[in-house]
């Protein structure tokens, strides 16, 4: 019985090694649903786009939006939003998603319901802001 168990484990391990390279693409595809928001990029978003930020000419998130809800919104935008290549040689991809509710304000103070997320080729968020 023990020998059968060991043989089964070897077989399963062998199959895993065989399948892993073919599932790599699927894993990469799936991982685009979950982007990485590093501490420094989060701080950048807070500095420039948080409700109490004094930066001018930049969209602002609504007061009450937390870091956790920001992460959720970013992932939803990447998962369900419209994707396009970044412009004029800038690296990465732009995702835009309309939440159909106010999430912040535009640069002229009007209500903003859309989120733009810029993601680099390593799947890391570069910036995110409402518009």
């Amino acid at each position, binding site marked *: 019985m023990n020998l059968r168990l060991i043989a089964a484990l070897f077989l399963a391990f062998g199959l895993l090694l065989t399948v892993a390279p073919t599932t790599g693409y699927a894993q990469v595809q799936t991982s685009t649903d979950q982007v990485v928001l590093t501490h420094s990029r989060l701080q950048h978003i807070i500095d420039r786009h948080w409700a109490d930020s004094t930066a001018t000419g930049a969209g602002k998130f609504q007061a009450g939006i937390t870091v956790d809800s920001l992460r959720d919104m970013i992932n939803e935008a990447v998962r369900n939003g419209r994707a396009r290549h970044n412009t004029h040689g*800038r690296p990465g991809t732009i995702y835009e998603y309309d939440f159909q509710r106010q999430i912040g304000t535009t640069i002229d103070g009007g209500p903003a319901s859309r989120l733009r997320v810029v993601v680099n080729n390593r799947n890391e968020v570069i910036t995110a802001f409402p518009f």
Partner: protein
Amino acid sequence: MHLDYRLNEDRETDWSSVTEEDLRYRVALGNLVFHVGDKDFSADWGWIPLIDLAASFAEIVRKLEGGSASETFEFTESDAWVRFEKKGEKVLVSTSYGEGVGQIALHSVSAAVKSFRERLRSELDRKHPQAAHNPAVRKLLGVA
């Protein structure tokens, strides 16, 4: 056409190691001074990545000269934009944040963008000598 900039003071950046992504989004920030005829399209937001703007405007000029009818520059931290539309030998310039439409010859846009890049490169080299040796800086400011 008057195309100029105001570069923020920066004593924190390690210019020997900045990447293209840094230059596109986080480094060499400042204001845009931009007049087309009597139209003022300046943006004094203080966070505009100027090397990115210089590189993007140069790419836009290249595309317009190559036959593109219209090109739009998008700012990095808002949905604000600057649009260049070719009408014969002229270019119509409009923005999402300023009123009116400016008109200028394509060769004047090209000359203004070239001058902008050269002045920015010169100021960066003077203030941050390591920038001159950074490949990403050289690539985006046209000396690669």
